[in-house]
């Protein structure tokens, strides 16, 4: 056993947490995280607003200025879109591996690889979501000390859609946190049960 004699498992590991339940819980969470991250990516990439301002009037003809707000004007939003895209691809690949990957021989590296990749993607989505969140806060409130004006009073729809993408991304972040935790728990469970039985958490080749 991976635990020494007389040591108690924490409450949440144990007889209640069976292998099948663990597998389907993890897959359900991955599906939710994939949907959240994909939604965040799509909403941010398609975020665009064009507005025409009247800046002057020459005689009776108004002089118009057309300004467009696109997501790729801000490097932080580009990073946000890329990070969420990568996280959604990661979750999709992990679901595929779980469903279809029982034929490959991973040489014992499957669970550590899954756990490491989950941690890396957690770091990625955390970075993307926070960078975009603070850029959005700057756009909403401006910064009087640096003489930066807010833009959300002029481009309200752009800001609202960006806020929606941010909420989806933070949801994906919370889900990735839980998924990371469960992946490491899977490692412990497999190790502690490998002396007892030959069942595995995720279908590995026998």
């Amino acid at each position, binding site marked *: 056993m991976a*635990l020494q004699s007389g040591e108690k498992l924490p409450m949440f590991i144990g007889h209640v947490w069976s292998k099948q339940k663990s597998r389907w819980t993890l897959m359900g969470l991955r599906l939710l995280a994939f949907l959240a991250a994909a939604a965040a990516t799509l909403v941010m990439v398609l975020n665009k607003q064009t507005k025409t301002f009247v800046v002057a009037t020459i005689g009776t003809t108004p002089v118009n200025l057309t300004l467009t707000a696109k997501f790729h004007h801000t490097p932080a939003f580009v990073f946000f879109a890329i990070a969420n895209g990568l996280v959604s691809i990661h979750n999709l690949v992990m679901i595929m591996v779980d469903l279809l990957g029982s034929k490959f021989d991973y040489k014992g590296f499957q669970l550590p690889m899954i756990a490491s990749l989950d941690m890396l993607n957690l770091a990625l989505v955390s970075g993307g979501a926070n*960078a975009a969140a603070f850029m959005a806060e700057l756009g909403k409130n401006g910064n009087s000390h640096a003489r930066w004006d807010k833009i959300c009073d002029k481009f309200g729809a752009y800001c609202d859609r960006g806020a929606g993408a941010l909420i989806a991304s933070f949801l994906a972040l919370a889900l990735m946190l839980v998924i990371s935790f469960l992946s490491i728990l899977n490692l412990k469970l497999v190790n502690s049960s490998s002396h007892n039985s030959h069942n595995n958490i995720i279908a590995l080749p026998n």
Partner: protein
Amino acid sequence: MEIKEANVRAKAPNKTDKFVLATQICLRIAATATAMAAAWVIFTANQTVEVLGMSFDARYSYSPAFKFFAYANAIAFDFSLMSLFFMFFARHALTATIYFFFFLHDLMMMSLVLSGLAAGTAIGMVALDGNGHTGWIKICDRFEKFCDKVTVSMALSYVAVVCLLVLTVMSAGKSRQI
């Protein structure tokens, strides 16, 4: 029975275990020191500039992103220091479950510092280059010393994140063995 034999077998600390423990303690010292240095540098980064008789100043508290970055590094320093003391004083009694809690702690700290870094970098790039589309002008040509100190603080924080990442992976690895 297989299980009883595994329990009865004595666990003497071999060279690999000592190496891993030493690496963990060194990395924790590095993460604590860099987080503390990053927090210290940004807390003390002030600069006042006189332009046309008016004085403008720059400090970390003028931007919520820099505030978040500073507080994230300070919190990471506190928790890393506590974990360092815990690991040092409990070094002969480290089990898989304790390593699991170390893993959770390191994961949380890495996420926190990385979030602070992302926020600070995003706003720092706006301060460094400006943003032509929104009409935000750069401020780093006026406040050179402030911008340099913030850059140094972020570089130290990046080092802390790398240390914490390696610590997370090591703690996760140790939490399933023993």
